């Protein structure tokens, strides 16, 4: 993870088990599942038994089977997309008591969506244990038209909604679960630095 001087840029310290929690929910994608395997290796079987994993990424049946074996005895539910995984998370949080510990691991858009949803249930973002895995792609909000651009891997990036060329900043909004993109050639239109694939 690149170090940023921007204070709003989230940091993901890595997963560690809270052995006292009475139940755990882990939201992850395919890449994050490897971090969950490592997390389980640092805890006992009882920890895994208390855990529900929501895996939000499209997987083949064979891949699902592998993950299931890898992560048993935790119960695991599969969702093809992040929004579908988050919808299930919300359902679970609605009924959950204190003593639940939330984990998120995978790409930043995935972790950000978990933190964003959890805030609606008054879960402090610092109490969510997070680990970044996989692509560095970002979710970006165009500060001009307010549209969201998903899976951004380059800087600058063209706004998918208003067409402006945006500088992707490290300025992050937890509420929006997005980095801020600001018009890069406002002074001299067309004066745009070369596009770099910064967030592969």
């Amino acid at each position, binding site marked *: 993870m690149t170090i940023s001087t921007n204070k709003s840029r989230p940091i993901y310290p890595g997963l560690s088990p809270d052995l*006292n929690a009475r139940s755990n929910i882990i939201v992850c994608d395919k890449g994050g599942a490897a971090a969950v395997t490592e997390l389980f290796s640092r805890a006992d079987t009882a920890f895994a038994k208390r855990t529900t994993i929501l895996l939000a990424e499209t997987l083949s049946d064979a891949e699902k089977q592998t993950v299931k074996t890898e992560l048993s005895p935790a119960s695991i539910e599969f969702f093809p997309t992040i929004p579908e995984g988050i919808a299930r998370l919300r359902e679970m949080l609605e009924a959950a008591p*204190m*003593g639940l510990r939330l984990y998120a691991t995978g790409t930043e858009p995935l972790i950000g969506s978990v933190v964003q949803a959890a805030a609606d*249930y*008054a*879960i402090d973002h610092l*109490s969510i244990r997070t680990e970044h895995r996989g692509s560095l792609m970002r979710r970006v909000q165009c500060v001009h038209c307010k549209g969201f651009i998903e899976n951004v891997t380059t800087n600058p990036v063209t706004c998918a909604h208003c067409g402006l060329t945006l500088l992707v900043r490290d300025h992050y909004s937890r509420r929006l679960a997005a980095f801020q993109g600001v018009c890069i050639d406002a002074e001299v239109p067309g004066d745009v630095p070369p596009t770099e694939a910064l967030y592969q």
Partner: protein
Amino acid sequence: MSGSRLRRVRVAEVEQVAARIKRFRLVDIDNAPLSEFSGGSHISVVMHSGDRMMRNPYSLMGSPSDTSSYQISVLNCGADSRGGSKFMHENVAVGTELEISEPLNLFPPVKLAKKHILIAGGIGITPFMSMMNELDSLKSNFELHYGVRSLDEGAYCKYLQSRYGSRINIYRQDQGQMIPLETILGNQRLGTHMYVCGPKPMIDWSLQTAELLGWPSENVHSEQFSAPPPGKPFTVKLAKSGREITVKGHQSILEALEEHGVDAPFLCRGGACGQCETGVVACDGYIEHNDHFLTEPERVSGKKIMICMSRIQTGSITLDL
């Protein structure tokens, strides 16, 4: 940054509210309005007893929006303390003039919480008086669990029950009643926060119970007002100005510095906030670390001291001031 400016107040009312607890109502010396505060705030009261200057923190208890007077409650800790509370009980009466700091809040309720569980032991009820006032007016969901030795020794039991009804739960030690904390914390909805104020063993027990039940530390809050423990006099040398100041047996380093007009940083005066952390240049005595702030390695290094609470046994200490 050092403490806010002081304000002169006059004691307008004194009431014995429990066996060893008095309530004091303070008004501005010129009857000017006082500053508004938020639930959980405290002030520090400056006391001059003989040639000694002491400064103790006390929680504000009234309604946060009432700027006509402040109310504090003081438990007389008797002979085993350094004398601040005894001074308030024996030397302060209606008409006495005192100096106080502006309110400071190191124990605010978390605004976004879905529910607030307040755990108080004895005089630890005081910060919750204003906190409940505020939570009630915001229509926030809260409940108080209040442990007292007996109804005689517990302050405000009747008042609280009549004002907040079933949200107040009182547990009497003389009848063998204990706060059933595990049951209380074991059955709360997500987004609940716990706040505890009382004697240190009670705070430790509460924090530990919450942790073992899987409560994230972000949902758990505590405040402890511990007065600086007394000891033997010793000398403080200030490296920058070359001054030498004697810290008397019943004083903290911070109080001794203030008495001599040295402006040192502080906020909580209870060893919790970290504001008064001061570098130690040299020390020929043993440092008694009485704070809850420094880490164990920092203590062992002997390079830092929290001057609001900690002292040395004898000898002299040179501070980076």
